[in-house]
């Protein structure tokens, strides 16, 4: 489906960002991921990670809650403000129930209790990466569709909006007060420019781009 839309998703390396103030813990987590061939970067404080440029590839964050200076929960809140969309997996000690709850409410993907078993860690990290991969892929598809929609003329866009409600050419023409023949031409252009073989595909693509039947074009 949508040939050529999702290219380049795997081009950027997948990275796990480990943030823990404890040197030994950092090293062991890093090794464990490396032994599975997962690329990772370590940070000794929340501040150090915040100072880094936003990662634009697939990734996830392994974040210790209990750290001196800025805590994990604080960092999470700040990243959300900055529009950071990497999934966050928290690491907590025993008994940090209340902060774990706060973290999950704010959208943390998961939390792991230290000491973390390798299997749990890898499962959580893989799940987070998979999720982010899908998020990024969806974003790319959406961007590609939007780019194609942008290439349509205003009239073609109007025709497309009518088409995705399932109307036949004649009704589209009536609604837009144009000749049926003209409507047919526009429709052919829309399908060609959007790269769609059927109206069903077009409806689905519009849905992915956030355009629902009956919507008005805002631009």
């Amino acid at each position: 489906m949508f040939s050529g839309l999702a290219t380049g998703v795997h081009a950027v390396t997948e990275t796990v960002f480990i943030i823990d103030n404890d040197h030994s813990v950092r090293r062991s987590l890093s090794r464990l991921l490396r032994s599975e061939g997962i690329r990772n970067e370590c940070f000794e404080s929340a501040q150090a990670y915040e100072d880094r440029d936003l990662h634009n590839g697939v990734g996830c964050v392994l974040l210790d809650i209990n750290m001196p200076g800025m805590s994990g929960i604080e960092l999470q809140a700040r990243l959300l403000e900055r529009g950071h969309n990497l999934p966050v997996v928290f690491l907590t000690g025993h008994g940090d129930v209340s902060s774990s709850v706060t973290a999950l409410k704010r959208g943390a993907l998961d939390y792991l209790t230290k000491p973390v078993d390798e299997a749990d860690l890898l499962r959580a990290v893989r799940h987070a990466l998979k999720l982010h991969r899908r998020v990024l892929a969806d974003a790319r598809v959406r961007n590609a569709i939007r780019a194609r929609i942008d290439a349509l003329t205003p009239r073609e866009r109007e025709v497309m909006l009518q088409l995705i409600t399932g109307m036949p050419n004649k009704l589209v023409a009536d609604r837009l007060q144009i000749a049926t023949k003209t409507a047919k031409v526009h429709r052919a252009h829309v399908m060609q420019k959007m790269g769609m073989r059927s109206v069903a595909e077009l409806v689905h693509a519009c849905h992915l781009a956030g355009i629902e039947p009956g919507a008005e074009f805002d631009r």
Partner: protein
Amino acid sequence: MSLLGIIWSMIAAACGMLGLTQAFLWWHNRKRIEFPISMLMAFSAMAIPLLEMNLVFSADAAHHDRLILWMNLAVATVLVSIVWSLRAILPTTRRWAAVLITALWIVGICVNFLLPGNLTFSEVLAVEPYMTPWGEQYFIAKGTINPWKWTADITVLLIPLYAIDGAWRARKTSSFRQSRAIVWGIVLFVLIAGTQAILLDTGHYQTPYTISLAFFFVILSFTWVLAKEAVRAGKLDEQIARTLRETERLMRINMMGEVAATLAHEINQPLSAILGNAQAAEKFLARQDPDLDEIREILADIVRDDKRARDIITNLRRMLKGDSSEDQKADLESVTREVLAFMERQLAQNAISAQLHAEKNLPRVCGGPVAIQQVLLNLILNAEHAIIEANATKRVIEVRVSKKKGGCEVQVSDSGPGIAEEIREKLFEPFVTTKKLSLGMGLTVCRRIIENQGGHLTIENQTKGGACFRAWLPACTL
């Protein structure tokens, strides 16, 4: 031997005993004013039977005049002390009445010593012999009644009224229950002394003076009440001491709970690292061509983390170890360092920096290290709380250990808002606190611990702001 002589000697001895009892109570309870007053009362009362005894066996008018002079002084002292010590025990008595009675007696005593004769007789005219029913001869003075004698007589009427009024106003309170024996004693004294005075003065009936017997009842009642109360207070002190000991134990358990939580967290870190490293090593080894250098590095890390965990446990064990009897001296600097090391993480989390300044070559101090640690932990927690609560911009806890006056002092000062003057000295009393969620026992127990070791714990506000606690402990000479 004369029966009268025996009776008076016994009364004098009994009054002396009661006076000594009061002196003893005073010695153990120097803050209570009623004990010295009652002691004065009992010793003055002891003089009365001795004077009476001399009086009844003397046929000389001039001797009578002189003895009555001194007897009046003794009676005045006894009555005035009865009034004021009753007031100390029963605060509902009227102050103006006590002042009035005292004033009347001051006038009386002035008349007694400054005008001719004494307060009873302005002139002793004759001494007349009488016989007791059992055939003993005694003498009674006759003379011109002093026109100022009413000042003394009126107090005999006023004192029971003063006592009954005070008792009536306190009738439903515990101070009445405690002091009613004294009120009855005073009323009995008036009945005996008053009746006797009327009989003597009207000349219907003659008896030797026995005012001392009446006073005896009053003093007996005072001693009874005060001794009973002293015993009760002693029991109360013991109860308070027991409660404090119990609180100290509970606080220790509570603090150990906190210590354990922190340590659990500390030990979790090396444990996580060890688990991760070991599992990574397994994976590396499972590869076709394992990188042995990597494995070696992992093993070195595991060993290091294991040692770290062991050190944490060793520290824990040292902190939990009770004060054993052989361990009664402490190196104040290292104890302080341990506590600060323990608190480091928590303080850092609240963005508070702790600074330790310690003098070189400090002597060891008396006291178990664990007890001192408990006090320091408490003081540092208080300092931390003060800074957090005030949300201070400057967040520093300074700890100084220095030599001072044959011992060592540790100062814990914070950059918080300090302590309000009106509460500062009361802070060490039980249930006094500046925190919302606190029982107010922490500093009470801290001071107790330090004082048990022979030291003292004080608090002051620094001129630059913030509170400063000073714990001084004597140097250990053993």
